[in-house]
């Protein structure tokens, strides 16, 4: 009944399916580019360092809003710099009447952070109201830094174990390279542009891992399927075919994700802008890596060619006994 009222129309299949782009031809340059990008990122993180936020570096962050009119940042800067709290960073935050004040970690342990915060509060209470306060002491910041890195490493490990279990070690190796690439390059960009790197960035990195491996798994699934279908096809040709066949999906899903992330980035407010920025970058890099790294790597590593049902069954059986053990 209702179904008859629905307009019946086809969607726009905007993607030309017979392109057969020669991805595998570029696997050398693409891989080289990625390796260079990773090396540069590592170098950036090692020399410039990541611009840690309060979570990881310790210190305080105070978001202020003027009681009336626009904030006079230079007057505020003069005032707060006179408090003897080291380097005080002051910046406009989103709107002209919002200001973000950052204090570096004060020497003298946990109590010193609270004392410094009180000085700032007292100095600003006449013209501003506090919208947000974050104080992270030295003990907690080092713990959070540790957990952050463990989380990302554990995320990669968990995913790789899953991929290894479901596919073959070559796929897992491709995935681990692609995922490390995504994390490293995102971190490198954050280091280069001095974007703040904090707990929410780690959450974003973990989500990127999930998204990127999504792409990788979709392509890997198709590769496995084609390995069964075309037993004699040249591996490079087969990989290229698989990438092309899934390309329309990769791009469409990427587009919806980007649309949402852009909306979140532009309209989602100042507080999680950094988080959304990391996600935006990560989705772009993650899409690139599954098309240009994970699958092409298989061309170098080679894969098992016998994916007949008998072989698959024996693999499944051994997997089952593995799981039982």
């Amino acid at each position: 009944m209702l179904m008859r009222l629905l307009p019946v129309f086809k969607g726009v299949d905007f993607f030309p399916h017979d392109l057969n782009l020669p991805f595998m031809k570029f696997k050398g340059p693409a891989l080289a580019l990625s390796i260079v990008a990773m090396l540069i990122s590592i170098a950036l993180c090692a020399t410039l360092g990541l611009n840690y936020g309060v979570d990881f570096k310790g210190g305080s962050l105070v978001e202020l809003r003027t009681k009336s009119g626009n904030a006079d940042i230079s007057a505020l800067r003069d005032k707060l710099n006179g408090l003897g709290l080291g380097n005080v960073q002051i910046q406009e935050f989103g709107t002209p009447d919002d200001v973000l004040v950052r204090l570096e970690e004060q020497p003298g342990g946990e109590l010193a952070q609270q004392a410094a915060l009180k000085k700032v509060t007292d100095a600003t209470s006449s013209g501003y109201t506090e919208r947000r306060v974050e104080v992270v002491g030295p003990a907690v910041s080092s713990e959070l830094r540790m957990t952050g890195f463990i989380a990302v490493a554990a995320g990669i490990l968990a995913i790789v174990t899953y991929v290894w279990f479901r596919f073959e070690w070559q796929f897992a190796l491709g995935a681990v390279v692609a995922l490390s690439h995504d994390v490293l390059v995102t971190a490198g960009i954050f280091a280069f542009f001095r974007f703040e790197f904090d707990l929410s960035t780690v959450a974003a990195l973990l989500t990127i891992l999930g998204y990127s491996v999504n792409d990788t798994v979709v392509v890997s699934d198709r590769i496995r399927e084609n390995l069964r279908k075309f037993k004699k096809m040249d591996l490079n040709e087969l990989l290229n075919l698989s990438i092309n066949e899934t390309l329309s999906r990769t791009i469409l899903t990427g587009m919806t994700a980007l649309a949402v992330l852009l909306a979140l980035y532009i309209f989602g407010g100042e507080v999680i802008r950094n988080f959304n920025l990391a996600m935006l970058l990560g989705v772009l890099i993650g899409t690139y890596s599954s098309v240009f790294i994970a699958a092409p790597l298989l061309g170098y590593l080679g894969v098992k060619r016998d994916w007949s049902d008998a072989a698959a069954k024996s693999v499944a059986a051994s997997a089952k006994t593995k799981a039982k053990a």
Partner: protein
Amino acid sequence: MLQFTRFRTAIILLICLAGALVALPNLFSKETLKSWPSFLPTKQMPLGLDLQGGAHLLLAMDQDEIKKDWLNNLRDESRKVLRDAKIGFAGIGAQGLSQLVIKLAKPEQRDAAMKALQKVRQPVGNALLGTGVYDVDISEGSDAGTIILKESDQGLRQRIANAASASIETINRRVNNLGTSESTIVRQGTDRILIQFPGLKDTKELKKLIGETAKLTFHEVHPSMSADEAKMTSIPTGYKIYPSDQSEGGGEYLLREQPVVQGADLADAQPGFDSRTGEPVINFRFNQIGARKFGNFTKDHVGRPFAIVLDDKVISAPVIREPILGGSGQISGNFTVEGTNTLAVQLRSGSLPTKLTIVEERTVGPSLGADSIADGKRAGIIGGVAVVALTILAYGTFGIFACIGLLVHLVLTVALMTLIGSTLTLPGIAGLVLGVAMAVDANVLIYERIREELRVGKMPVAAIDAGFRRAFVTIADSQLTTLACAIIMFWLGAGPIRGFAVTLTIGIMTSIFASVTVVRLLIANWLKAQPKGRVTTVPV
């Protein structure tokens, strides 16, 4: 794949309906919900501190102080036990923060002493199982006639746990004075305490309340020697030099270390004003035991000063003019009105076992929280509209089905979050929206697959069927890997990240049902509704 029995259809619709019903209250204000009939669910997702505003304080206990206190107690007890057993000792000294060394006067009494000292130790852990573990290990020292009392790991752990629960109780009592809002105070890790206080605008009062241990003691002042004299010669045994509060002039006092009465014997403490000078004071009353001890003491010491000590600082040292037998009195210092209010609360609620330091603070004002909700809503709606537009543009009629699936996905996610009472945070809103974008991936996979099957010349129904079947393996694989990430985030994450991880996890679980099962049901019904059951083209 495209056949649904009536029973299955009914179950699927029922799940959607139940989900909608549970999710519904989140769209309304609390006031509106009150007027709802009682059979409708009214539970809402609790909002995180970043959305409703409030304070989050992580406090650390001072482990060294706990150890020191315990060592002091142990020393007093050992002294008493040895005296009762008539075993002479040359000295009991602390070594570091974990052990006491007792030197006996006669080395041959060591065995007897060790037997007697067994009274100071207490079993730790499960009394029923009787694991035979004690909080103190008693062993022979390397020198003749020495005994070492060392705290065991279990003993220390239990002591810290006790201190934590005592602290939580005390904080609870103190914080209750701040208002009626529901605060949560829990232990985190071994030596941390987390306070979450939704709706609290100003943390100054809260910090002041928990900032002091408020250990109140009354001490005897040394009858003849002053602190300066004691420093020059030597401090008499049993006495100790205490600094005084800045307002008292900054002098020092030589006081007997063992207090006459302790804060634990206080029955009440109220802020008030001195009737003569009008300055703010604290009026206090002892319980029976305290009143008796204090009465006896003042009777014997008329005309001599005694000291009121707060957190090891002398706040006043008045001279006893007459015996105080009624058990009540007045503390005057250089107090402000505010100061007496806070101190009275602290004294009433008992002292904290150790000093607490704030190691992490996150406070969000209510206006920022409201702005964040508004921003999240706006971004969510715009993002959602973008996804819907893209999906319908790319997949036509089937795209509409996918969008219905997305709606079901969103509703079920919200419903599940409401059911388990998971907190909605700002990153959680992002996770919700992102979950929609990732759920649509399942439909993209299916529809692209259907198109592929159509391109190789399959008949419409067969193509749709194959599309669903083939894509499902991929969908399951990709969702499971994302799930692994989300679980790790939950496991390691703190606060807002945890909220994001929960949202992501629930989103994955519902997306298979919503984007695959529900959409398949819609398409199956659409196929049935086609004239004469014949499908010539697939609107994808």
